[in-house]
């Protein structure tokens, strides 16, 4: 904080501030990096009703419902989440809105935390949904406020597209007061709020007319801005790429900064192109703007020199333009890789340590969550991972196809609690319905751990940490017709019992449902409950065989001067290493409080 209402804020937080200032009353989201903090910050404002949604489609439906009922609403997600949410958003674009409705999608160029790097701007022409693209934290706030005005003025939901560098980038933001936006009175309006073909045939034509109005707005708004400098080089750019080119060329070039990217501003593009000698398009990922400019018949240079994969950087753009870089230092020695790993005390470590012994007999289908790290050494257990909830359907298909192929491996589906609620339930219903002989392994750590411990319908806590009824996943399984003799509970800190459960699963002749339940060790209440417990090494018994270090990969374990050493501040006494040690050199000390 500084004087004059200035705050140093992450783009995600600034966007939430913009929603607050715009009088937003309702927010919904499912966590996903790099979008998570948008909702988390929106939820800090008591004026905004915010609970995590079970998945992005539900979040979108909640937000659409909220504006239908008369209040401004915000719905945020990462790029994968938008695929899930697309189903309700498509008809919403046709129907239009009563109160302002803003969707936010955070892309991940460079794939820091994603398995793909799609370009969400493609949703613009696909859905006919207008798109805004802020280029720093201040714009995240300002554009969000503008988005609510545009949404209500043009009777449309609107999409704000961020990238990880904008979401997680931090800059100075000036605050303003919250607007008082009265709740709009809801009245029954079937043609607007019911998506029935007989009620909606006129809507497509109306939508195309709206796009024309939006195209005119795109030409008029300052969200798309020409900055004249030297006219030898003209650059059309957006988001973080604009900041990069601006830093490289300064006043030595002219810029058309695109902040409203669907529909694109045809007249401004023509005016800009006519005013510069050579036109370049600098954008991350797809040639989205470039294709439009070329379609207008305007010659320009884009993906001929600017990479379409990975994130851009000042250095990448300099190289593309042949701008000489600064002198640099480079040493031949490299820093050792720091591959992601399960934390000390992780409840997944025991499960995958036990699984390693049975790999020849199983095909392990993974899902999205911390446990996806079981793909990597030292575990190397999972063999597949598609998408949220993909583990169970994948296992079903392997069961059927391996039956046909005469292969004996037993399909195991590994899925965490939050992912199960998000989109595992439907797959489980399929498994029961098809009588699939698979093992469903629930890794229930009572939290959406990977994105930073968000609550969900099974965690028993709401956003403000007040209690709510936790839905137990084994109750859902029972409700779906899975019998008691098919359900097995196991302590993920007990290697011997894990081993038994896995063997039972391999031998089972019908669906076997294993629940490994223990709260994530990094949850504050778990830390409190296990404070003072840790494993210790008896140096006289340690033979330096390194089995503990190699098999667990535990970050609390290391070898120093020929002996295993445990960092007691990191260790929570899960005891997996103690169960691995053949020389009884490790024991757990300190009792449960």
């Amino acid at each position: 904080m500084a004087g004059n209402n200035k705050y140093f804020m992450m783009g995600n937080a600034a966007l939430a501030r913009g929603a607050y200032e715009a009088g937003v009353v309702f927010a919904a989201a499912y966590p996903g990096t790099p979008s998570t903090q948008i909702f988390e910050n929106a939820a800090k404002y008591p004026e905004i009703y915010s609970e995590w949604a079970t998945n992005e489609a539900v979040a979108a439906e909640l937000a659409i419902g909220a504006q239908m009922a008369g209040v401004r609403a915000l719905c945020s997600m990462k790029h994968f989440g938008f695929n899930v949410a697309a189903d309700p958003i498509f008809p919403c674009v046709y129907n239009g809105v009563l109160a302002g409705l803003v969707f936010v999608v955070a892309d991940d160029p460079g794939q820091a935390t994603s398995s793909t790097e799609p370009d969400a701007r493609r949703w613009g022409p696909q859905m006919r949904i207008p798109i805004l693209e802020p280029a720093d934290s201040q714009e995240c706030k300002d554009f969000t406020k503008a988005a609510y005005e545009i949404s209500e003025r043009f009777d449309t939901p609107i999409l704000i597209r961020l990238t990880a560098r904008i979401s997680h980038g931090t800059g100075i933001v000036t605050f303003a007061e919250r607007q008082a936006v009265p709740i709009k009175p809801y009245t029954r309006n079937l043609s607007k709020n019911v998506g029935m073909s007989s009620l909606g045939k006129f809507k497509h034509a109306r939508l195309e007319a709206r796009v024309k109005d939006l195209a005119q707005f795109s030409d008029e708004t300052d969200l798309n801005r020409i900055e004249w400098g030297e006219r030898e080089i003209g650059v059309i750019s957006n988001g973080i790429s604009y900041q990069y080119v601006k830093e490289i060329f300064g006043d030595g070039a002219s810029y058309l900064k695109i902040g409203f990217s669907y529909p694109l501003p045809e007249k401004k593009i023509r005016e800009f192109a006519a005013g510069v000698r050579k036109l370049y398009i600098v954008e991350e990922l797809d040639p989205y703007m470039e294709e439009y400019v070329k379609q207008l018949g305007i010659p320009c240079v884009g993906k001929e020199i600017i990479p379409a994969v990975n994130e851009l950087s000042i250095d990448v753009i300099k190289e593309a333009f042949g701008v000489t870089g600064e002198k640099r230092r480079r040493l031949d020695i490299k820093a050792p890789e720091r591959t992601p790993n399960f934390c000390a005390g992780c409840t997944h470590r025991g499960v995958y340590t036990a699984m390693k012994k049975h790999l020849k007999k199983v095909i392990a289908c993974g899902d999205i969550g911390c446990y996806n790290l079981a793909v990597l050494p030292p575990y190397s257990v999972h063999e597949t991972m598609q998408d949220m909830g993909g583990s169970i359907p994948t296992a079903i298909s392997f069961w059927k196809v391996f039956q046909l192929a005469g292969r004996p491996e037993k399909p195991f589906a590994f899925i965490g609690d939050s992912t199960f609620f998000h989109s595992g339930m439907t797959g489980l219903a399929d498994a029961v319905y098809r009588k699939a002989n698979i093992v469903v392994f629930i890794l229930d750590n009572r939290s959406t751990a990977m994105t930073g411990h968000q609550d969900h319908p099974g965690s028993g806590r709401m956003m403000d940490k007040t209690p709510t009824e936790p839905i137990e996943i084994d109750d859902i399984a029972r409700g779906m017709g899975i019998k008691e003799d098919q359900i097995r509970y196991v302590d993920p800190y007990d290697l011997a019992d894990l081993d038994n459960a896995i063997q039972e699963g391999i031998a089972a002749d019908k669906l076997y449902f294993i629940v490994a339940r223990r709260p994530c060790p990094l949850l504050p209440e778990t830390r409190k409950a296990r404070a003072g417990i840790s494993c210790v090494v008896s140096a006289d018994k340690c033979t330096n065989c390194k089995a503990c270090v190699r098999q667990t990969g535990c970050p609390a374990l290391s070898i120093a001067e020929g002996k295993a050493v445990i960092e007691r501040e990191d260790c929570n006494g899960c005891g997996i290493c103690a169960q691995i040690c053949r020389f009884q050199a490790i024991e757990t000390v300190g009792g449960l409080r």
Partner: protein
Amino acid sequence: MKQSAKGVIICGIGGQGVVLVSNILTEGLMEMGFDVKKTEEHGMSQRNGAVNAQIKFGAKVFAPAVAKGSGDLIIAFEKAESLRWLEYLRPDGCLIVNDVEIEPVSVQAGKEKYPENLSEILRAEIADTIIINAAEAAFRMGTIRAQSMVLLGISVKKLELGSFAWTAKIRAMVPEKYQEANINAFQYGLSLV
């Protein structure tokens, strides 16, 4: 094409205080009247992964990220982590290294080697290199967690930002029970340059 803004890179391992120091530094810079931007990479794991924060400040900042060969200062909370960022340093830039080696799983498992004689190599490569065991110094002052403040103290001096009331900022941004140790560690850092 010379950038007017100054560039600082802070790198280390999750849990060492990289983010905290970057927050204190950027808040202070903003209050000093600079335009400031920052970009962070946290990696996927909750702990023990490589973490970095890039900061730019000046009259006007466009991109938060530092271009190669243009950084004024690198603060490495872990020795080998400095290697990932060396090429971002100006030829006459300053390198501050915490004399702490944290071996990743790949090294523990014998698949990779931790670079040897790194302090000597870094000193030979970069004239303005400061290597200090901040962890040990912080431990003497009450908590190893204050190691980040030793490094902040050195950095503030190196960046010639000493006129700002940093101790008040630290007080506002660290938990009460660690405040004294952190401020002592910061002042120790200031005294080293």
